[in-house]
């Protein structure tokens, strides 16, 4: 009997005092996803990595907006988004108290503006992402003159850039020196590319 009592006293109370006192969290615990929209550039790396589609993005070209959305209710806390985020906008915290009464409280959204193409005025990439690319180039030691030329290139949508490349090709001897069938082929290609300029066939 005495031995048992001693054992009980020695073991103590194993039950956590959780709701009254904070619950101790292991440093490796993967908890709530903390999102900092100021560090986010809407690059969509996390939405591609997310296996459960808890993260998603919707682009609205008419309004020139891209909306980043996160649903806590679908998140499986795998930390893939934290891994791929190049700017540390997503960090997993030790928070686990996520229960809610209304489903709408599980949503986190952020709105980002898009850059419009210098040639065709189609919105195509988030403004913050283009700025980030420029900042990386600047850090890599590109001189200011080249940087401005690159900015022109970066603020042109991929379709317009492709058309520009075709136009440049035609001017060079490579294309002008072609025989008639090959030149016809290139002309045909260019005419097929033309509708892309309007952006009608390519939805972002």
């Amino acid at each position, binding site marked *: 009997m005495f031995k048992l009592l001693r054992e009980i006293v020695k073991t103590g109370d194993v039950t956590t005092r959780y*709701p009254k006192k904070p619950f101790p969290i292991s440093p490796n615990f993967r908890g709530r996803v903390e999102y900092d929209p*100021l560090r986010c550039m809407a690059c969509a790396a996390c939405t591609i990595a997310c296996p459960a*589609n808890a993260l998603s993005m919707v682009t609205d070209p008419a309004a020139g907006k891209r909306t980043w959305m996160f649903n806590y209710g679908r998140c499986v806390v795998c930390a893939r988004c934290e*891994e791929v985020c190049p700017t540390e906008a997503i960090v997993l915290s030790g928070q686990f108290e996520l229960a809610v*009464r209304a489903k709408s409280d599980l949503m986190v959204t*952020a*709105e*980002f503006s898009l850059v419009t193409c210098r040639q065709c005025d189609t919105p195509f990439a988030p403004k913050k992402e283009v700025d980030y690319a420029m900042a990386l180039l600047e850090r*890599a030691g590109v001189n200011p003159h080249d940087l401005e030329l690159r900015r022109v290139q970066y603020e042109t949508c991929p379709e317009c850039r492709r058309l520009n490349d075709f136009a440049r090709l035609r001017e060079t001897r490579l294309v002008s020196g072609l025989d008639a069938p090959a030149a016809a082929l290139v002309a045909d290609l260019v005419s097929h590319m033309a509708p892309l300029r309007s952006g009608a066939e390519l939805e972002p």
Partner: protein
Amino acid sequence: MKPPDTILGTNLVPAPGAVFSEAEEIAKLKDSLMKRIRRSAYVFRVDCGGCNGCEIEIFAAFSPIFDAERFGIKLVSSPRHADILLYTGSMTRSMRLPAIRSYHAAPDPKIVIGYGACGCTGGIFHDLYCVWGGAESVVPVDVYIPGCPPTPAATIYGFALALGLLEQKLKARHHKEGENEVVIPIRPLIPLRLRVALEREARRMSGYRQGRIVVDRFMSILGHEGANAPFAERMKAYLDEEGDPRLTEIFERLNDIVEGRPSGWTGQSSASSSTS
């Protein structure tokens, strides 16, 4: 609001997405159950097609460590005794009828909880051919406990929230891009190629999440400007403090990459380290 006879089951097979609604007096009763409960609350689990991870965590919440029974919350084996219905798993086609039947079997007023990522929205299974979504695609849900699976502590918090003992912490958030918002690249002092090589090697050695944590520590020691001691000394001091041989090995390997020494491993990392 639908008349009460719809609740009590003349129409047991609703179309996907149909939701039962409650009569007003029952909603009022439930309100008092959620606000001023003066007795034990009995919980019945309904597994609608999950992976059983949630079940393990629910039972862990009733183990001596967490002991949810000290709050009077008790698991029962029949919905007829239940105050709280715990829907775990995504709502599958085959389990929708048992889910509806247990909802009808539980006496009013009852609290319905969507438990786990699957119970909330369908989770990772949301786009399967046989999955209709979360529990709310068939029954009206009062409280959502997300997580995959929710830890026992999160489970207790969810119960406390359902019974009105604790306050909700999570709120919907929306951000609109400001005027001159710019993202500054991280780790300005370390060249991009070296950073990529370090991150890749750290992840190869210790897994994707731990790798990031380890390489972050390494780079914060490496890129620390104002320190007086040379990098090797600072690294040694940190490793001695941690006293973890695994961490020491990874740090030594990362240091090899910084100093341009070839790796013993003949894979991708040797190619990337030669570029640094």
